[in-house]
Each structure stands twice: as C-alpha cells, then as structure tokens.
C-alpha cells in the first residue's frame, strides 16, 4: 500500500507531499522523503554504469527502511518523484507504470498558466488524479 508520494523540485524544495494513511505521522514520512533525497543525489552524481544508463529516469528502489520501501524517479528538469510504500512484494513494472502516470499528471499540472514553477502545486485536479493513480496502483499489484 502506498503511504506517501512526494514531488521535490530541483533545489530539493518540496512541491507536493501527500500521505495516504491516517495512522502514521506525517512528520516521519516527510523525514523519510527527505533522507531519500540524499540517496537520489548520490545516484545522480555517481552513476553505477556510465553510458546507456545516463538518461535513466526511473531510479528504482532507493533504500529499504524498517517497514517501508522508497522508490525514486528523476525527470530531465531535475524534479524528483518519491514514492513510499509498505508493500513487501512490489513489481518493478508496476512502479514504473505508476511513475509514468504520475509524470503525466505532473506535466498537466505545471502546464496551468497560473502555476508558478518552483512554488507548491496547488491544483485540485492534480490531487484528485494522484489519488486515482495511487488507488489503481494497489489494485493492479494485487491481481
């Protein structure tokens, strides 16, 4: 189950954070997202293999904590999407699919002429679409 998604700007400023569980305190999730940013920077600055993987947008599993898994995705404008989930068995394809849909929703949200790049995303449509994508993620991985 996805507990949290976050969009972080290229200066590591938070653009959108949404948690999907009532129980866990939001602060802990924010902290996990913050720590994962360091891992992202590390992966970006020291690529494991040079050459074909330089353009990789999907960063994969960043690091597993005690009961969470954190996945990362980097757009070409250095905007990062972070996904925190409690699922133990998550297929790679599902996560990639999730990020693809999330990226599409993000692009539509920033195409709004009233959105200021670098400021938080306040679009209600974006929030609704993200909820839909998160709900469908749970269903597709269960089947």
């Amino acid at each position: 189950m996805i507990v949290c998604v976050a969009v972080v700007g290229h200066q590591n400023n938070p653009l959108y954070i949404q948690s999907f569980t009532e129980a866990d305190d939001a602060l802990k999730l924010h902290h996990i997202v913050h720590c994962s940013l360091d891992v992202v920077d590390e992966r970006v600055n020291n690529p494991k293999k040079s050459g074909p993987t330089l353009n990789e947008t999907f960063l994969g599993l960043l690091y597993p904590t005690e009961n969470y898994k954190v996945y990362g995705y980097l757009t070409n404008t250095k905007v990062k999407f972070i996904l925190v989930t409690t699922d133990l068995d998550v297929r790679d394809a599902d996560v990639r699919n999730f990020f693809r849909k999330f990226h599409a929703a993000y692009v539509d949200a920033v195409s709004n002429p009233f959105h200021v790049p670098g400021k938080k995303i306040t679009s209600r449509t974006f929030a609704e679409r993200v909820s839909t994508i998160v709900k469908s993620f749970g269903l597709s991985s269960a089947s």
Partner: protein
Amino acid sequence: MAPKSGDAIFASVDRVNAELFTLTYGAMVRQLLTDLEEVDEVNKQLDQMGYNIGVRLVDEFLAKSNVSRCVDFKETAEVIAKVGFKMFLGVTASVTNWDTEGTTCSLILEDNPLVDFVELPDTCQGLYYCNILSGIVRGALEMVSMKTEVTWLRDMLRGDDVFELQVKLLKQVPEEYPYKDDE
C-alpha cells in the same frame, strides 16, 4: 445549410499545435494579470482584444467559408456556432435558449481548447478567462451591421459543466454611406 461545412474548411486551413496555442493564450492572460492587477480590468482588456480580432476575423471568415447572406439572426447564430467556431477553434458550438423574439440565444461550448490544463487560483475568481471569445463574436457581428451584447452565463473554470455564451442582438444598424446623395 452553409454551402461549405465547418469541417471541410477546418481541414483546408493551416493549423497550429493546440498546446502551443493554449500555452500562448495562458501566458498572455497571466501577463495581463501581472500588468493590470485588477481582474475587472483584465476582463475588459480581453474583451477589447477580442473585439479587435473579431473585426478583422470576420473578413477572413466570409472569404474562406463562402456563406450566403443570412436571412435572420437565427441563421447568423447557427453559422457562427457551426462554421465559425469550427474553422477557428476546431470545436463546434451548439445554439440553444432562443427567446421569443429571436434576438437572444446561447452558444454552448462543451470543449474549449483555450482552457486545457487551466485552473483558476483563488485570487482570480472573478476572471472570465475566455473573455476574448466574447469580444471576437461582438466585433465580428458589428462589422456585419449588428450591434450585440455578449456575456458569459456559464464558465467551466468556475465549476459549471459547459461554457455558455449569451449573444443578445441589440439592433441592426443599416449601412450608412459617408456622402450625401445630391450635394
């Protein structure tokens, strides 16, 4: 009813990328808001810009579409909705809500390329984002001797389900010649 339907003309004119068009219009509205700061001023300015476009657009419309002279205002409204909107925006509007005298009607737009991706922030709630369209209709009709008043009844950016533009014919101005007959 029109000799050349809107679809045929739309297919034959040069087209531009829809996203470029949408983003350009959005940038223009944003700049107007930054420059003028008052939402009412921006509405007026958009209407004025639309008026200037409309008075020029009507000649191109009449040249490309080859419609015959409209018999009454009802036919005019149909032509604008079916041929005009299709030719320039790529979407057809429908005409409804005729009043008893046949001078007021509503143009309904279910799909509007100007507002793709747009969400009005709370600070601009009085903004008629598509006000340029009302100016265009008003300007175009004025060039064919009809004085009209065009207002927005429903606006999708404010939560309604369609865009509804009310066109009210105020008077038909017969053509005036600038010279006298005898002297």
